């Protein structure tokens, strides 16, 4: 079965002709030229293919594209200029960069879902991704800096009119 699918990605509608057995990763990279999600292990282990489905991280190598219909998808291309992208640059949270988009997706979802994430919650979430260059310490620092910034913003008194 080959079908035309419409996917909601980064707030836009994308149409692709796909095989029903194509994974979301296949379609993003090969059909839509959204190559930010990386092909790593294709076994659910490394997290380099992570994207968000309705705000939650999923590994796109083990999700059928057809299963993503109706979900609001976010890929790394949709996170330009976000605090997490900046934090990764500022903290040098990468070396070769292959794992980076997957980590940023996961970390972005983490700070949205758990603005008060403890170290334990952060470790639980981040352990879904692998960095072969072992930038783990810098990645933690990047995530913590965004959490701290968010907390500061929340505490700042709002102007009353």
């Amino acid at each position, binding site marked *: 079965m080959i079908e035309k699918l419409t996917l909601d990605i980064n707030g836009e509608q994308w149409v692709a002709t796909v095989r029903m057995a194509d994974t979301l990763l296949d379609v993003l990279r090969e059909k839509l030229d959204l190559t930010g999600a990386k092909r790593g292990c294709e076994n659910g282990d490394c997290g380099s293919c992570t994207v968000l489905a309705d705000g939650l991280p999923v590994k796109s*190598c083990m999700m059928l594209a057809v299963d993503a219909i109706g979900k609001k998808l976010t890929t790394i291309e949709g996170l330009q200029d976000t605090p997490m992208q900046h934090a990764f640059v500022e903290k040098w949270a990468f070396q070769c960069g292959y794992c980076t988009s997957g980590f940023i997706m996961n970390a972005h979802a983490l700070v949205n879902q758990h603005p008060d994430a403890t170290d334990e919650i952060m470790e639980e979430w981040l352990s879904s991704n692998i960095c072969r260059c072992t930038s783990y310490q810098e990645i933690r620092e990047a995530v913590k800096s965004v959490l701290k910034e968010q907390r500061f913003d929340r505490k700042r008194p709002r102007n009353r009119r």
Partner: protein
Amino acid sequence: MLHFNFDYYRPSSIDEAVELFDKLDQDGKKPIYLSGGTEITTLGRLNQVFTKAVIDVKGIPECNVLDYKQDSVVVVGAALTLTQVWESKILPLLGEACVRIGDRTSRNQITLGGNLASEIIYREAVLPLLLSNSTFVVAGIEGIRQLSVHKIFKEKLRLKRGEFLVQIKVDGKYRKMPFYIEKKRKSERVDYPLITLEALKVDRSIRLAISGLCAFPFRSYEMEKELNNTDISIEERIDRAILRIPAPVISDIRGSREYRIFVLRNTLLDALIYLGGVRA
């Protein structure tokens, strides 16, 4: 990338699903049910799974139920993700087993039904369901069956051709009972288990279920009997329980047979102390 293609169906009712299966089966399509889809995509890539048609059960309302009313039965739909089961806190005994499976992102995709029906030997979510004498609700072309876990889960889920798992039911009394769970991995934070042991205290006796020790998850009444024999020392009870392990102990890259038994011995001790099964 999967090297084969298939047709995809997403029925919205139980009847539609089982009728579809029946028809596709007769047409020689070798249909399989799909839930989280993580095993079909990963094993499919390695050509360890093959089908010409998948039937996604996630659109069936009964498979998405999460329900508990005071003093009644907890109902958990088979298509709920492990994250959903854990976050619901509906049945801590089950939630704590789910949160130890895989990693956080994978748990957003892996479903309870998928884990129980998995080809991969661990099927850790069954441990609390064995301990709580749960009921499995399964649907097939002949209708709905409700079976004790002990009848339908023997080493693995034993469904008739064309049947799928709809829900799990657990008596609400198990929500508050004391339990102990420990997943020991080789070294990483995320991995399949060296052993996962879950123990439940019901009145004064302890129930025990284990995954990763043998080639299938199990609850052992023989081991429980030895552990609950309070006439002898705790070390003796554990020694005797170990003699009752129901099948050969796995020896693989995660750990040798001897190491697994060593880990089991220590974990049993921790479990007995935690649950107060030890005489002062």
